[in-house]
């Protein structure tokens, strides 16, 4: 951790002894940002945990009911929808290894400077730019029964492969998985490229001098160097799959057909605005939060232990 522009150690003690007056400028600079973050993130974070132990609704402030909400989700009346949503989140996790593999292949080809690298880089990054809502609308059309994908398959006499991509109960979540993966690969390629370009070229030269092929070099020199960034991408993927996929489901399928593509976020949204059960929705939120905290703590600890080495 850098020291920033901190005063040297000698004057430190004098400064540490400040009265409240010395704090004033700091507070002045920080306060606006902290107020907003406190209002939007800090306070709700505490409130959502409290609410998750109550039967609060929009009208009724509710009272403390212990872990009933959690029990209801895991083993009570809402367990079916809860576990289905959870399962769907797990399906979406498949996007993490697929994205990483695809991005590694693409990035290692781009990295060595194949003809047209720059152009490919831009093309592959482009899906990351538009909003989830925008690309989801495109995919509703592309994946429709009469849409371009099915029509293309039919034109190629592959009629049996034409599917009701977004309206088949078993298939829909896998189609969403495809869209999520499609959107994210470009971003991961970007991260991998940035990391690869900071690898010491001498390492590669040494491998080349030793007569290693490109494939071996990637496997034994480049990928070990990328361990940290790959782990970071895994953590990011976890957080995204559990907490940033709402828009895909909301636009692509509205959770349907027959609630088959519910994910935890969508379950929360539905409990909150259809059933108006603030307490129960808060319990779902807390479970999502726990998930994010666990992976984030893992990431920080790993970064620390690596920095210590």
């Amino acid at each position, binding site marked *: 951790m850098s020291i*920033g522009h901190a005063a040297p150690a000698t004057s430190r003690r004098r400064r540490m002894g400040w009265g409240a007056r010395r704090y004033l400028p700091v507070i002045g600079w920080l306060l606006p940002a902290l107020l907003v973050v406190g209002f*939007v993130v800090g306070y709700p974070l505490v409130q959502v945990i409290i609410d998750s132990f109550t039967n609060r609704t929009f009208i009724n402030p509710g009272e403390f009911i212990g872990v009933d909400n959690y029990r209801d989700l895991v083993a009570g009346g809402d367990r079916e929808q809860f576990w289905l949503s959870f399962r769907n989140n797990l399906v979406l996790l498949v996007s993490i290894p697929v994205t990483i593999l695809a991005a590694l292949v693409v990035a290692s080809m781009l990295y060595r400077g194949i003809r047209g690298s720059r152009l490919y880089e831009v*093309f*592959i990054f482009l899906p990351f730019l538009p909003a989830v809502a925008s690309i989801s609308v495109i995919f509703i059309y592309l994946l429709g029964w009469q849409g371009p994908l099915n029509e293309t398959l039919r034109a190629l006499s592959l009629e049996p492969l034409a599917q009701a991509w977004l309206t088949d109960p078993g298939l829909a979540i896998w189609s969403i998985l495809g869209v999520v993966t499609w959107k994210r690969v470009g971003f991961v390629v970007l991260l991998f490229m940035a990391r690869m370009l900071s690898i010491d070229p001498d390492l590669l030269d040494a491998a080349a001098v030793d007569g290693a092929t490109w494939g071996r070099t990637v496997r034994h020199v480049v990928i070990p160097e990328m361990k940290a960034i790959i782990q970071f991408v895994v953590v990011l993927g976890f957080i995204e799959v559990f907490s940033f996929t709402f*828009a895909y489901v909301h636009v692509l399928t509205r959770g349907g057909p027959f609630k088959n593509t519910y994910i935890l976020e969508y379950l929360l949204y539905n409990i909150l605005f259809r059933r108006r059960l603030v307490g129960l929705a808060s319990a779902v939120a*807390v479970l999502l*939060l726990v998930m994010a905290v666990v992976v*984030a703590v893992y990431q920080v600890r790993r970064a620390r232990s690596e920095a210590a080495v």
Partner: protein
Amino acid sequence: MNRRTDGQTRTRRRKHRSRNRSYAARRRVWRESGLVKIGQQLLLVLVAFVSLAPLYTALTTSMTPRGELSGGGIAPPSNPTFDNYILAWRDLGFQGMFSNSAILAVSAATATTLLAAAAAFALVRFRFKGRTVLMAAIIGAIAVPPIVIIIPLFLTMSDFGWVNTYHAAIIAEVGLLLPFAIFLLYSFMKDLPKDLFDAAALDGAGSIGQFRHVALPLSRSALVTTAMISGIFAWNDLLVPLILWQEGRFETLMMGLATLGPGRTGVRDVPLLMAGVTITIIPLVAMFAIGRRALIRGLTEGALK
């Protein structure tokens, strides 16, 4: 930019040069058969095609006259038209949605960047008790998912009577974007030469003077990056406006797409809808074209730290 005499610019330039050089060097070192090369090109063409095809289809479909769309319409229309854009803009409500999205994105980006700059400046320039804890809290806040805080936030804003006011969604976006923005600007400002601040202080500049005449001008590129990323995220966000701007007059482009998208899938209206989708993407592509470097630097910054 020219005033930056520290190592920053030089390092970046050097890095850039070595990047070009190593591209060439790598190509020289690993020569292989033409067949492998062709295979790789084919694979990349395939990946690029898969990446671009959906966006390209949206573009061509949006320029197909209504009613002339055949199901598999991937080929460009024989008589392209902009009528769909005019219709979507005027009659489908995209004009109003566009201005709401623009208001949200521009105000959120401006406020986020200003507040984050002030906070980052304080974290870099002052040493105070609890600074480390505060840094940890800010970095931790980056990982807090919007969906988690949206319930209490909605309830609080309802209590204040703020739901369906302009500032509701703007404040929410700013609060969600600030932690990352502070982190981004802090990691840039901490590398600014301390001497410049001290020199300004010797000249009698207080913290306001140092902020205005040293921190801000020297961080211009990082400020642009922060503003761009904040703007894009707010522009693209669905959840916050969906919940805090529930009235029709506040409808943003993303909300409009979420409503129209699944509803209007009749073939006749698809070109209109695709024109609408393209309208939401054009500003992003323009921004990417102008500030690609700054944008990519901002996106990769967090991951490489």
